[in-house]
């Protein structure tokens, strides 16, 4: 039986168990003179039975789905190896893929090596066994759980505390998904990076000035080694982010100040949502806009002034990214500016300062930590932004600080290294994870620092 079918079956059984348990508690309560005379409400008895019926087998299902595939694969590989086939680590995944395709009937069986056909049959048989034993085990577990909890229903059985305890554990598990995610990110990126740093020394990666990650098809090819110096990527990322910030910070900050301090209510109620539209536009749309409208426009504009502007210039990608970040900065700045107590404004105005002097000399200094925090969050966003640069920035890693030239970024390289079919263990793909690690660490530090600042600032005026 398919996993989804089993899932539906078990959930159905759980529902059934709920009604049975509830019914039994109601039947128990009747001769005693109503549900006031049993410990918990009938639905809690039902929920208790349902939980015992469904939860253990669902847990089993989860574990089974994790370990079932790798186990079958290792058994199949072992049988192949005992049949006299030499399998090394690199051909393993290829072989497994082939066997899986044979077993699924995607590849025709005609003309394949007999050993592989046998292995495919073995795989099919194992999958069959696994499916049936899973179904049988889950059903037994469900029915046992049901029978046991059913037999415990009595007028003094404390169903409610038990159900609530289980529910609290479930809620806690859900809350911990965030931790598992972080852990998953760290582990997945770290493991691959460590593998990468085994073949490429870490200081070559962090301080190397040359990035050309192509690896050779033949051993003796020219330039077969590939070089993984990430400095051009860092410089490119910083250049594009700097261009973006040059646009986003002044525009975002000034519009926040205007909306918070000057604009009438009606202007604010129109302009604020209109600016926030920019935040809701998918980045792929910005990428398209940058690549097909802004970049050619800048190139032609540059040509009319006698400048050579690359058609994948950092200016185009950074400029559009800046537009994307405007609402991010303006809404964060708006929050901190409106959080500055009115008494400070009144004090300054009462001393005869004009409104702009109040803003410049009182409000901005008071809101500065919050604004800086917001800008740092925006920088972390610009560094991690992917689609705009993938579509509008270049591929070639050039070490330059000229925004009119084409540069590449960390995220562009991650995407180019990892899209398409590749061998998973080559330094080329592992390099993408090393870049991912860099990206994660840098944005994490920026985020933690910025969130700390913003939090502290909020407490100051609360």
């Amino acid at each position: 039986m398919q996993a989804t079918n089993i899932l539906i079956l078990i959930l159905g059984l759980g529902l059934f168990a709920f009604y049975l348990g509830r019914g039994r508690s109601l039947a128990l309560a009747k001769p005693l003179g109503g549900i006031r005379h049993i410990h918990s409400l009938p639905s809690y008895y039902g929920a208790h039975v349902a939980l015992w019926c469904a939860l253990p087998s669902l847990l089993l299902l989860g574990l089974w789905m994790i370990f079932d595939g790798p186990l079958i694969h290792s058994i199949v590989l072992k049988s192949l190896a005992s049949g006299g086939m030499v399998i090394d680590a690199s051909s393993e995944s290829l072989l497994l893929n082939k066997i899986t395709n044979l077993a699924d009937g995607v590849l025709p069986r005609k003309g394949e090596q007999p050993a592989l056909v046998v292995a495919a049959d073995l795989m099919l048989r194992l999958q069959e066994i696994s499916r049936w034993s899973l179904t049988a085990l889950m059903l037994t577990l469900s029915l046992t759980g049901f029978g046991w909890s059913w037999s415990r229903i009595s007028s003094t059985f404390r169903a409610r505390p038990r159900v609530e305890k289980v529910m609290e554990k479930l809620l806690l598990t859900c809350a911990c998904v965030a931790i598992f995610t972080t852990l998953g990110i760290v582990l997945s990126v770290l493991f691959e990076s460590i593998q990468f740093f085994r073949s490429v020394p870490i200081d070559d990666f962090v301080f190397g000035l040359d990035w050309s990650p192509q690896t050779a098809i033949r051993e003796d090819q020219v330039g077969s080694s590939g070089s993984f110096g990430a400095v051009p990527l860092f410089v490119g990322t910083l250049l594009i982010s700097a261009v973006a910030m040059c646009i986003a910070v002044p525009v975002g900050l000034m519009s926040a100040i205007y909306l918070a301090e000057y604009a009438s209510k009606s202007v604010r109620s129109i302009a604020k949502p209109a600016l926030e539209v920019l935040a809701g536009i998918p980045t792929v749309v910005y990428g398209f806009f940058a690549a097909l409208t802004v970049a050619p426009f800048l190139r032609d504009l540059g040509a009319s002034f006698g400048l050579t502007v690359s058609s994948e210039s950092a200016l185009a990608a950074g400029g559009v990214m800046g537009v994307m970040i405007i609402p991010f900065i303006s809404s964060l700045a708006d929050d901190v500016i409106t959080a500055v107590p009115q008494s400070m404004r009144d004090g300054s105005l009462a001393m005869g300062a004009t409104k702009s002097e109040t803003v410049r000399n009182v409000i901005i200094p008071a809101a500065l930590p919050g604004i800086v925090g917001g800008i740092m969050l925006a920088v972390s966003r610009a560094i991690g932004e992917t689609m705009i640069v993938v579509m509008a920035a270049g591929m070639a890693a050039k070490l330059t600080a000229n925004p009119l030239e084409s540069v590449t970024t960390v995220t562009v390289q991650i995407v180019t290294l990892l899209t398409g079919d590749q061998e998973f263990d080559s330094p080329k793909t592992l390099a993408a994870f090393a870049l991912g690690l860099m990206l994660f660490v840098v944005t994490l530090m920026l985020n933690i620092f910025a969130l700390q600042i913003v939090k502290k600032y909020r407490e100051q005026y609360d």
Partner: protein
Amino acid sequence: MTKPDNKPVNNLEKIRKSLSRRNRSERLFRWYGRLAIFIGLAAVTVLFTDIVSKGHGAFRIAYLQLEVEYDQDLIGVDNLTDPEQLILGNWQAVPKQALREQFPDVSGRSDKRKLYGLVSNGSGFDLKDRLLANPMLLGTRETIWILADDDIDTYYKSWLDGEPYAARLSDKQVEWIGELHDQGKIRLQFNSNLFTRGDSREPEQAGIRGAVMGSLFTLLLTLMLSFPIGVAAAIYLEEFAPKNGWTDFIEVNINNLAAVPSIIFGLLGLAIFINFFHVPRSVPIVGGLVLTLMTLPTIIITSRAAIKSVPPSIREAALGMGASKYQMVLHHVLPLALPGMLTGAIIGMAQALGESAPLLMIGMVAFIVDIPGGFSDPATVLPVQIFLWADSPERAFIEKTSAAIMVLLSFLIVMNTSAVWLRKRLERRW
């Protein structure tokens, strides 16, 4: 002891003198603010105008009127129920013959090839589908509208607009189109292919149906996973969590995950789901899981805000009436916080719908023609389809891409306005 030049009269004089300068800088500052707002609004306007002006044409596409004959010998099919014949049949011969009849004086190999280039490469298969739907047509003639090639479509539209773009056409082809136009045998029709077909290498045959279905399955899974988990996590953190280091750690994690670049989630999906658990690439299951992890922080944060906004008096009243803590949460707090949570979920889904970077990592960029029918069929999603089309060299794909963007943006606008509407409609002020 005041110095002579610091007398009140002198100070007043000084202030009066500096007043005009100060007022000027005040006005200037105000104009800077207006300029900033203007730049932001101009960016919105330019972006939308650009997309619409590039994409509006894609909703109509050129068709040619030809008289076709479903000639059994020409196609090589005499029995429409025989699948082998259907596969081997020379379907493209039908529109080719119709073109030869329309322009009988065309001769020579290269001219003929150009002539055949007027209609879409897939038009023969469209005729096959039509024939299969009406088997009576076999062996008869009829006059129908046939899909034109994308270059013809581009040229015809630009010609109608008064700026002919004929870079990809020969003079002969331009002449033929002029002839067809004079006879009323070429026209623009509503482009239903855009909404009913999957991806294709031929721009005129390509549609967004496959990507829309892929997005639908991916988002459905995302919603089914992230909403319950997010709400449960929010309830735990707001109502039950003890104030200790573990809770703080969870909170720090959630806040950081909300700001982690989305591409990192793609790396997570690639390393864990695909390389460790061997889930196949390109399927909505992996996409849904990755987007779930990505939207979860948003949903948790908005759900917590919604729970927080329920006043404590409600909780105290429930507890005072003898409800247990769970009964208080499930029967009183949750129903009151639900509108806010739903708004958060819609915003999270809108974010997930527009996301493409992590999906590139897990192989949802593959060229997929078939329309996915389930969670485990290879699929792509709408933003990734836009990315793929934007990368295609054919000029006609620019139009298509912009049209796909318009569809994506309208989905997003509907979702966001419904979120705002929901909030306005259901939100309770205490």
